[in-house]
């Protein structure tokens, strides 16, 4: 490769392009001036989207990566530019999303001198990145970028930060742009499980009478959707799907249990404590799924397949650990399957529970969020649709009610639970998939954390459909305050929020305010049929609660099917659940 008179900034962008990264998001600033000058020079190859806030830019790159499987770059300046990315980096780290975050930095001589906008972002972000670099010489840029891309995208993916002092960006880079990667400590495990482990799993599956497959985000990230379906159908094993994996196994499939855990489906939460084999494929036994640590699937053999061996034994003690890529594991397992499980009674029991606990959405007394997702299911059927959610009650209703049939088409901040994620993630996804119908389902709380990105929607001419679940409160917090704080509502009313339809109109985005249940489908259809962006402000019932609910720290068996405060009149109220330490 050429080694001509290239600056550090030039080298950085050329190395990103050479690694296939051609989409960037960000906001410029003083210490990023040279980086942005190089972005300008390469503007025909490195597509750039100007965000309105760095948190938004980072979530956009996250949404882009989830939709494409490829990372995007985020370019921000030092100091506040860098610190504003922290929430986005954290959200990506918690959900194993590859990102390249490039931060401008004060000049080398000014490091540690409290210079203007000088912040030690390298140390600040250390616990929330997969790896990071503070590049001290332009000659180190090619190696750092190549390593960063490799680390971000291989094994268990994650965000990598590259901090570039302004004078490093300016000085000539004499190193070859294909400088070798030197990572003696980094060996991602694709097939680190012994071959006998696959045989053991096949044997255990054949013996199981009450099997459950738990499909996690690792199944999505490894592209194992087809293999997973073959496994479930061949073994006749029901599949519980974690929030992040939604769509990796079709929600409409008769073997799909939906999401387990705190706000999981009743039939998934009733099945898990009873299962005799739990085959976890790329799930990390999050506390929201376990309920009680140590009380999870106590009667089952637990097989844990994960590309990250540090997950083994972290939250649950598996009987068999298989360190490797889910897709690789399944392609090894499928030829060794010994036919369907003898589990007819088990599947019948699950179906009985499914029928018994099918959610019923009242259509009187205002709009309930499940009604909106039901309408979206009908309206989006047959379309290539991507749903991005924000965080809170609407996110759980989406997980319970929205039907997703394909992986990578339900984008949500799971582990991080970063409010403000929905709209910018939808922007990233729409840029990645211009032909998709991209819907951002957001609560009125989360929406206001990144609503400034409406300008980015307009600026980029993105046909995103925004549905605001507007109950004028931080509903999930209010629900917890009802459950755990004796109904004392502390700082949850969102009085003072604007009329979101008028707000959208100020950006030139067509918008509707939806007030009556009877109009839900009509107005959503109108919004979906509108070319370009549209916003529907849905006046949803205030005080609505998400159920089923497993109180935090309790075993799944303690699931409450409905809000104890909403029992039919005349029946005694159950005592409120006490918070456990």
């Amino acid at each position: 490769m050429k080694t001509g008179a290239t600056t550090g900034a030039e080298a950085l962008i050329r190395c990103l392009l050479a690694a296939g990264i051609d989409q960037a998001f960000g906001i410029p600033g003083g210490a990023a001036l040279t980086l942005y000058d190089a972005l300008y020079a390469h503007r025909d190859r490195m597509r750039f989207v100007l965000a309105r806030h760095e948190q938004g830019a980072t979530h956009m790159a996250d949404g882009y990566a989830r939709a494409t499987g490829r990372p995007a770059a985020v370019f921000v300046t030092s100091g506040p530019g860098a610190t504003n990315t922290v929430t986005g980096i954290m959200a990506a780290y918690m959900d194993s999303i590859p990102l390249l975050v490039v931060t401008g930095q004060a000049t080398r001589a000014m490091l540690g001198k409290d210079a203007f906008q000088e912040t030690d972002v390298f140390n600040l972000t250390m616990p929330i990145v997969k790896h990071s670099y503070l590049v001290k010489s332009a000659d180190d840029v090619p190696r750092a970028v190549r390593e960063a891309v490799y680390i971000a995208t291989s094994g268990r993916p994650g965000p990598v930060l590259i901090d570039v002092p302004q004078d490093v960006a300016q000085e000539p880079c004499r190193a070859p742009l294909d400088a070798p990667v030197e990572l003696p400590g980094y060996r991602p495990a694709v097939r680190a499980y012994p071959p006998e482990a696959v045989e053991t799993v096949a044997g255990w599956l054949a013996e199981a009478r009450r099997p459950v497959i738990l499909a996690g985000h690792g199944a999505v990230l490894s592209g194992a959707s087809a293999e997973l379906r073959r496994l479930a159908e061949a073994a006749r094993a029901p599949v519980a799907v974690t929030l992040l994996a939604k769509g990796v196994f079709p929600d409409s499939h008769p073997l799909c249990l939906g999401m387990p855990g705190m706000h999981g489906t009743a039939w998934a939460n009733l099945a898990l404590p009873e299962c005799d084999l739990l085959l976890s494929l790329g799930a990390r036994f999050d506390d929201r799924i376990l309920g009680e640590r140590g009380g999870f699937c106590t009667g089952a053999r637990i097989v844990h397949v994960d590309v990250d061996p540090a997950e083994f034994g972290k939250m649950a003690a598996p009987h068999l650990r298989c360190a490797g890529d889910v897709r690789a594991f399944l392609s090894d397992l499928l030829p060794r399957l010994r036919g369907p499980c003898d589990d007819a009674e088990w599947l019948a029991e699950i179906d009985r529970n499914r029928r018994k606990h099918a959610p019923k959405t009242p259509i009187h007394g205002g709009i309930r969020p499940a009604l909106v997702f039901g309408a979206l299911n009908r309206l989006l059927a047959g379309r290539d649709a991507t749903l991005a959610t924000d965080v809170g009650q609407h996110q759980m209703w989406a997980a319970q009610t929205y039907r997703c049939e394909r992986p990578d088409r339900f984008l949500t901040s799971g582990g991080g639970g970063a409010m403000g994620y929905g709209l910018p993630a939808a922007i990233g996804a729409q840029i990645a998939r211009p032909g998709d119908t991209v819907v951002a389902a957001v609560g009125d709380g989360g929406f206001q954390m990144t609503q400034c990105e409406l300008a980015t929607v307009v600026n980029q001419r993105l046909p995103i459909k925004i549905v605001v679940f507007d109950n004028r409160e931080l509903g999930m917090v209010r629900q917890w305050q009802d459950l755990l704080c004796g109904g004392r509502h502390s700082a949850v009313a969102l009085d003072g929020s604007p009329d979101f339809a008028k707000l959208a109109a100020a950006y030139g985005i067509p918008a509707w305010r939806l007030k009556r249940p009877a109009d839900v489908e009509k107005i959503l259809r109108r919004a979906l049929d509108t070319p370009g962006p549209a916003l529907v402000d849905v006046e949803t019932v205030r005080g609505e609660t998400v159920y089923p609910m497993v109180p935090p720290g309790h075993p799944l068996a303690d699931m409450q099917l409905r809000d104890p405060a909403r029992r039919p009149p005349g029946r005694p109220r159950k005592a409120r659940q006490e918070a456990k330490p």
Partner: protein
Amino acid sequence: MIPETAPAASVRTHNLSIYVANRPGALARIAQTFSRRGFNIESLVVSPGKTAELSRMTITVKGEEAGLEQVIQQCSKLVDVVACREHDDAEVVSRELALVKIRVEAPRRAEVLQIAEYFRAKTVDMAEQAMVLEITGMPDKIDAMIGMLRKFDIEELIRTGKVIVARGDRET
């Protein structure tokens, strides 16, 4: 509910040897990995490894037995870490060096020198009112000598922290 913190009885000191790429931030990442999970670093020795690209860290940490495997896994997962292993005292040779400055004048000097001789410590500095002893050995032996020296006025005590190497042909 299982208590998040197990009884203190399961807390003990562990020897860890970490082979790590000599890159900026490696030490900070490792220290964060331990502190986040409730492990308190008691001693830490960092020095160049076989080549300049790799460093050897010997860390003794105090923490719950139950969390040790997890913290080793998390440490091994760090991009810069080539290997992180725990070693029982029985399977390693361990050494530590200490420099002890004692405020002592002529009348009691002989008594100090007698203790030093017993523990095979060296006298590396001697002045009218103070002397410095250098001792190398297992940390227990150093503890024992310091115990004997307590009756004198120990002015300063500097210990390097423990280094270990696996016995036989095992890897450290």
